[in-house]
């Protein structure tokens, strides 16, 4: 069975979705990613969906779930490179992915993660 590769880049994990997602693949990704975060103690996760051309409500929800799970495991998640068609579809489906951080591309996503982590380390959390 095919899997979506999860690459480790320093403190971050990079997930690049290059194929069209189907439900089983999304479930596997969810399992793989959560266990990798746990094993590596990664501080951030980048999910690159720039090659994803189509989504349905299930995949949309999976994406939201995955980022929610990573956050609970103390890894910030940034969703990068969403295509216009995908964004429109998700909005029409009523999935606005509240609370999921987004960025235009992997580079910007990485920068956002670094910045967030740096500000976290600098001062104690105000809350």
């Amino acid at each position, binding site marked *: 069975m095919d899997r979506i590769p999860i690459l480790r880049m320093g403190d971050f994990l990079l997930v690049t979705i290059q194929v069209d997602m189907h439900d089983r693949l999304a479930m596997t990704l969810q399992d793989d990613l959560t266990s990798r975060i746990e094993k590596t103690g990664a501080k951030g996760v980048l999910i690159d969906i720039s090659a994803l051309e189509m989504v349905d409500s299930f995949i949309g929800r999976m994406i939201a779930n995955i980022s929610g799970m990573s956050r609970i495991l103390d890894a910030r998640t940034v*969703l990068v490179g969403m295509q216009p068609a995908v964004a*429109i579809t998700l*909005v029409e489906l009523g999935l606005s992915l509240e609370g999921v951080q987004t960025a235009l591309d992997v580079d910007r996503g990485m920068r956002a993660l670094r910045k967030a982590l740096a500000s976290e380390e600098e001062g104690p959390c105000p809350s």
Partner: protein
Amino acid sequence: MAKTERAVASVLKKHERDLLSDWVRELKAGASGADGRLSEKELHGQAENFLKLVRQAAAAGEMDDVSGEPWKPVREFLEDITRSRVAQGFSSDQTATFIFSLKKPLFARLRADLAQDPQAVADETWSATQLLDALGLHTVKAFQKTREDVIARQQEEMLELSTPVVKLWEGVLALPMIGTLDSARTQVVMESLLQRIVETGSEIAIIDITGVPTVDTLVAQHLLKTVTAIRLMGADCIISGVRPQIAQTIVHLGVDLQGVTTKATLADALSLALKRSGYVVTKKA
């Protein structure tokens, strides 16, 4: 009936030349030839072609039904003429007069040919009238169709024109919206804006609604959808140009614009965008 049908056809055949010259004279005296928009040669050519096609169609049969197959060339020819008339700025009655002015010379020939049989003249005239009326109405229909095509094309162009995405600064896009927002337009606007965000890698998009006359719940919802889609792609969106009345309407409608950055003017939005991207604008002493 069959006899009279043949009679019209035979008159057309026998007197084609005379009919043509009479008709052209009639046309020149009438509205469609008088003001020099059509040269005499052009008019003559069109009339000649028309008579030839009608003669062929009439010879092939069926005079009552001009929507049939034998009349197809005639109809197409009329549509061509109508299109060129529209382009030249003729009105629909001037276009139809082209056909109707054939009546006088044609009836005169019929009367002369069938002088000894008044009954036949009446029948003949009636069937010729019917034929020419049908053809005249066809030109009016074609005229209207051409005009409708023009309107449809203009609407399309307006849709394109009214959604320009402009680059205000490195990484800052602006979309000045003009006119009422409906579902179809919002779709086009949203798609072109999102596409440009991907192409330019801009992190901030400003939607300026100064040119939007009214905002209702539907429009507000469309705006919210666009803002959400932009955020999903990883860019930020600022809505600017909110006029006092629109701000009032939005609150009265109970639309929740929490979480959407709004500014009163495009200038405010731009300065916020510059600040967010780390630019500092200073004035030289």
